[in-house]
């Protein structure tokens, strides 16, 4: 009797494991395209965490109270941690962090376009936490069950930490909305700017997302872009109403039949313009990362040189 292995190609065996929800681990055989897709997706995700530190980081020094300052700093630091977990997961696929950073810095690798929008008021810290992290969580929770083991494990850690982010964002918004009229106005103004870019975070419409089908088949992705976008709108509209804020889309309306909200069309021209590098902050975000990396080179080299000297001396570690 022939065993399954004798009948199935490696690709078919691989797909059978995926279909049986068996996790793929680093040393397992995997199709090249699976490996490449994962490296692209995980590193893009890591880059988003790294670049995502910048728009919020620029308010750490201006946070309005000591408590908010602590929370914001802890949150932005968490994003550095998330970037690190994800780079580590990608490194199990045979790439290096240096290689991934080089791809980010050269513009070859992408990161989430949302971070190319400026943060202009304190209410933006609320919107980034509540909306942007809210959208990110919708994307990320299914990834805790993604087919590649190290990625799934990194995402479990990320999601645990991320829920604090969304809650603190909502709390910032709630405090503003329950505050003075100028605070409420600040909250509404920020929502007006962040609503549409957040909807864009789920990516192009399914019809324009050629990679979705293969990614779903490999269980790298578990929901389509449009499914997640709809889920997000359904989740957020009632929350905005609770806050007493108006979502800046006149077409938002509960659809009894669909048991979901109808909503207007995203401005896809803007979406593609920002993806292609023409958002207000694309240049400065990338430059900030390049600068940090280049200005840090001598520090990293010094630590390597010292470690080598110490190893050569065989000296015990002191200090």
């Amino acid at each position, binding site marked *: 009797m022939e065993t399954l292995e004798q009948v199935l190609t490696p690709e078919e065996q691989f797909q059978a494991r995926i279909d049986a929800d068996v996790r793929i681990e680093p040393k397992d055989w995997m199709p090249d395209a699976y490996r490449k897709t994962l490296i692209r997706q995980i590193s893009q995700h890591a880059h988003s965490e790294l670049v995502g530190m910048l728009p919020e980081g620029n308010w750490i020094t201006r946070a309005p109270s000591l408590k908010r300052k602590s929370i914001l700093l802890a949150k932005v630091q968490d994003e550095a941690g998330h970037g690190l977990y994800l780079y580590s997961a990608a490194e199990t696929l045979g790439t290096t962090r240096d290689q991934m950073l080089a791809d980010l810095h050269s513009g070859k690798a992408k990161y989430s376009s949302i971070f190319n929008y400026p943060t202009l008021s304190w209410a933006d810290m609320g919107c980034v936490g509540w909306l942007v992290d809210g959208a990110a969580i919708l994307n990320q929770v299914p990834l805790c069950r993604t087919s590649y083991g190290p990625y799934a494990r990194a995402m479990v850690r990320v999601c645990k930490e991320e829920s604090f982010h969304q809650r603190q964002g909502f709390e*910032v918004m709630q405090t503003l909305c329950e505050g*003075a009229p100028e605070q409420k106005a600040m909250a509404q103004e920020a929502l007006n700017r962040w609503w549409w870019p957040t909807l864009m975070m789920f990516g192009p419409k399914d019809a324009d997302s050629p990679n979705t089908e293969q990614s779903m088949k490999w269980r790298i992705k578990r929901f389509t872009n449009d499914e997640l976008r709809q889920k997000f709108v359904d989740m957020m509209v009632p929350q905005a109403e609770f806050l007493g804020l108006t979502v800046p889309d006149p077409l938002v309306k509960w659809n009894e039949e669909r048991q979901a909200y109808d909503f207007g069309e995203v401005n896809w021209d803007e979406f593609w313009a920002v993806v292609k590098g023409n958002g207000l902050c694309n240049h400065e975000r990338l430059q900030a990362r390049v600068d940090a990396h280049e200005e*840090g080179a001598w520090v990293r*080299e010094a630590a390597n040189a010292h470690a080598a000297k110490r190893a050569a001396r065989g000296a015990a570690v002191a200090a």
Partner: protein
Amino acid sequence: MSATLPEPTAAAVPASAPRSLFPFVLQLADTSLILAHRLSEWCGHGPVLEQDLAMANIALDLLGEARSYYQYAAELEDQGRTEDDLAYLRSAVEYRNPLLVEQPNGDFAHTIVRQFLFDNFHYHLLRELKDGPDAQLAAIAEKSVKEAAYHLKWSSEWVIRLGDGTEESRKRLDKAIATLWRFGGELTTPTETEKGLQATGLVPDYATLLPAMQAHAEHVFAEATVPLPTAVFAQLGGKTGRHSEHLGYLLSELQYMQRTYPGLKW
């Protein structure tokens, strides 16, 4: 999972708490806050991801410590001011932090030298304060000294790596020492206020801290193969409100929201 950032808490002030401690506690608060603020400027711009996280951890420790001091100071003052009133609604000349901590981050070597000078003092001060006669101050110090021990380990190791690393790191470290060492002396030079409190035993005599500080610095600099600076002129002023120009810019950022929207809750 719910948001569980530990909130620094200040226990009720005992009736016997000496009011005279107020300016000293405020000085400690300002010092930790300003240094935390400086370190937080690195967030997102560190030389490597792992060290970005390390610096944010130190900043968070110092921020928590500052809040404990501000809350205690507010209780000692008993004028209805809150921690935020004290941090956000005082002008530069009212701030009491030493000059060292308000100095700009510069390159990583400057940040490390500033941190080392501060940590070496801070750790040894807290070791005394935790056994001091004021219970509340002792309680804050008890918690903070563990954090400070880690900070000192971190900055000491970086002094060693940069000193005994590459030619470039050595050059940068030397430059940072030349720029910042003169601000180290203020930490252990008591102001009139501090002298008064030292006389009552509420604040440790800084002279007693010096031997341990010196021994640690000698050990670290020997490892780093860098000569330990001697007889450096001590630039004084911050602790009496005579600051460098840097503090004004820092405060205009720090206080921007509270000054623009007075009296609101955030």
